[in-house]
Each structure stands twice: as C-alpha cells, then as structure tokens.
C-alpha cells in the first residue's frame, strides 16, 4: 500500500541537449531532449514537492532565446494536472541551489523548505574566493538566496545537516557532498513506510540526468557513468550513484532522474494539452490516477 502518490511533472524542455553533458564522455555523439521537471508527492496529509523549477518571469526570455529552453509552464498550470494548487504545497525539498531547482520558491506561500546546510556554507565560502572562481558558484541566483533569507526569518527555511531519516514519515534526506554541487541532496521515499522498505523511490536531483548514468551505454557491460558537470568530483558522483542504486534495491528504474525523457515510457504517463508529460510513479488507495 503506497503512503504517497508520486508524479514527475514536466514544466519545460530543451529539445536538443548534448549527450556529453548528461553523461560524461560521449563527445560528438548527438543530443537528446532534456525535460525540466519536479516531483509531486501527496499523502500522509501533506503535499510535497522536490524542487520548484525556475521563474519564467526572470529567466524565461534569456533561456528561450539563448539556450533553447521551450514550453515553460508555471506551477499553477503544471500542478493543476494533478488537482493541486501552489498554495496547497506544505513542504519543498530543495536538492541543490541552482536557479532551475529553487528559483520559484515564491510561488509556494504556505510551504516549508528544506536544503542542506553544507550547500549554503560552502557556497558562501566559494564566493569569497573571487570572480576567477565563479565556476564554483555558477547557476546561482542571488534573488533565490535573498528569498531564502526571508523564508528563514519566517521560520519556513530549514537547513539540514547531513542525512535525516524520516524528515517526513517514510521520507529520508541524504547529503551527497562535493558532487554536482557542494551540498547536493537526494530524497528517498520508502513508500510502504517500512524501515527495510521493499518499495523505495530515490529522487536524484541533478546527481543523475539519465538512467544511463546508472548503467552506461553498453547494457551488456554496465557501469556507473557520472554526469558531465561536477563542482565536487566525478568520483563522489559515482559513489553517490552506487549508494542511490543500493537504496533502491538495485532497480535502476526506481532511481529517478527528473531530466530523463524516458520516464514517460518506464512509468504510466500522459501528455497534457500543453505538450508536457505527467508521469505517475505511485498512487495511494484514495487517489485517482492522473494519467488514465
């Protein structure tokens, strides 16, 4: 019996994204579609998001014109596909402090936000190093940090220090230090509520872009292949990948990369009138399907 209904919700996409960024190594081997998405969980009296997406008002034009990001839709329209309003969201887990993961916090007026303390600590440290080191803090939006300050004052921003079991019932937070970012976090949902769960989903944030990070491109000879961008190290990414797969009982499909375009084929899904996908991973007993 599922404790949470779980959906992955597209909100934009890059139609032609270089494979070599999704998966370290294959240079000059073409492109794939890269959806932008976040995860919605409903259950236990809560409505939960993993990441918020970015704010089109601030970046949409730049991203569309310069980087080919298309078909953006805001949280109100995207969440409505599952009968949820932004103001219904009670909790948001921020996997890392990039603009496309925490850039829409202001759309969720009643939510409490969780981020790793290390993500903030090391970011401030990296900023003291000077502009020559700006690679280390790329994709950060000062407006998001200012928003985080305001949320902290309101008691709505919680910095967690490392791994947290049962941050909410059946939901564990894990620090993957010095990987994609300094304090990247992945979220494990034990959807049967058991401590030795047989029904685990791991939400990888940007620790993975594709299932191929879990297996490599040669299915006969699988290997962990890190994503193309690490502020920390590729080594740490590989070990985080192994740990996520272990937590998911060795089932790659249960380690969920939200940028993976094939999620819609692995799980039941529906294409919305906006051309975005709703992917349904689990349903509670009292929830109706949003894809059939």
């Amino acid at each position, binding site marked *: 019996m599922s404790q949470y209904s779980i959906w992955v919700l597209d909100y934009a996409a*890059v139609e*032609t*994204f*270089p494979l*070599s*960024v999704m998966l370290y190594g294959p240079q000059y081997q073409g492109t794939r579609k*890269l959806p*932008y998405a976040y995860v919605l969980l409903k259950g236990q009296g809560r409505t939960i998001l993993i990441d918020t997406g970015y704010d089109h008002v*601030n*970046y949409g034009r*730049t*991203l569309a*014109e*310069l*980087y*080919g*990001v298309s078909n953006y839709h805001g949280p109100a329209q995207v969440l409505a596909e599952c009968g949820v309003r932004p103001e219904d969201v009670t909790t948001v887990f921020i996997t890392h402090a*990039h*603009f*496309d993961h925490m850039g829409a916090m202001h759309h969720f007026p009643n939510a409490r936000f969780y981020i790793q*303390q290390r993500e*903030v*600590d090391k*970011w*401030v*440290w990296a*900023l*003291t190093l*000077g*502009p020559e080191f*700006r*690679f280390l*803090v*790329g*994709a*950060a*939006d*000062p*407006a998001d*940090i*200012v928003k*985080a*300050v*305001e949320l*902290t*004052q309101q008691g709505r*921003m919680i*910095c967690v220090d490392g791994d947290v079991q049962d941050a909410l019932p059946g939901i564990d937070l894990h620090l993957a230090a010095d990987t*994609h970012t300094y304090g990247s976090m992945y979220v494990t949902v034990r959807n049967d509520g058991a401590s030795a769960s047989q029904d685990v989903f791991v939400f990888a944030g*940007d620790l993975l872009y594709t299932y191929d990070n879990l297996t490599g491109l040669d299915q006969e000879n699988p290997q962990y292949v890190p*994503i*193309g*961008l690490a502020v920390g190290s590729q080594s740490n990414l590989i070990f985080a990948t192994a740990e996520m797969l272990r937590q998911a009982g060795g089932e790659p499909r249960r380690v969920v990369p939200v*940028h993976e375009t094939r999620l819609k084929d692995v799980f039941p899904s529906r294409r919305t009138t906006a051309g975005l996908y709703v992917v349904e991973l689990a349903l509670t007993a009292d929830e109706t399907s949003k894809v059939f």
Partner: protein
Amino acid sequence: MLRYVVESRTCHERLRDGLTQLAGIALLMMTRRNRIDSLQAPLDAARALLVPPFEALACLAVPREARHHHQHLLTAADALRQAIARIETCLYPNADERSRSALTRSLRRATEHLRAAGALLPGFAMVDMAQACCACHAAPVRPTCLAG
C-alpha cells in the same frame, strides 16, 4: 553608450556577486545563530569585493539614455552598503528581529534594482548562465538583437 554598457556590466556583475555573498552570509547568520563568529571573514571579503564596483559606478561616464539604468545600479549599491552595515549590527549577540528585518529589506532592495537594471539592457543577467549545467552547453542561439 557602448562604453557605458561595457563598463557598467562589470559593475553589475560585481554587485550581483556581492549581493549573493551578503545574502549567503545573512542566511548563515540566521540559520546558525549561535555559531556566527566565523562570518566576519566572509563579510570582510564581501566588503572588499564591492569596493571596486562602488568606486567604478561613481566614476562612470553616463550617457543621457543610460541615466535610468545607472540610477538602478546606484540604488543597488546603496542598498548593499546598508546591507553590510546591517550585517555588522546583526553579528552582535544582542541583535534583535528588527535589525534582521532591516537587513532583509536592504537585500531585497538591492535585488530589485539589480534586476530592474538587467531588464533595461541586454547582457545584465542575474544568473551567470554560462556556468549553468542545464543551459551552458546547449548550442547558443544568436540573439535577434545581434543578428545581421
């Protein structure tokens, strides 16, 4: 005008970086209130980072059509100066909620004016997309304003 754009863009970037740093310090200060001694060094670094753009802004030759833009940068710089002073105040053990609210207002004001400046001219982004993993390697499209 071109010279103004080139020179003020560097100022905007430095102000943006300074804002990020000050906001990060403020966030650390508020999330770990009993462990804030170590924040003096990052604050000093942020102050040092902001001195060149503060000085450069005052010396810029501003064409008439850029006055509005320049005014946003000046206001943002002023808000950042206030934010530095207010962080200093908030580092005292007896700092109260009112001081922290004043600090937040300064940071918000700086954000709004930097963003407003960014909206007036191309190339004054709030996020360095060149380093953004989900965008940086996508084949850049030549902006229509530069076509031809």
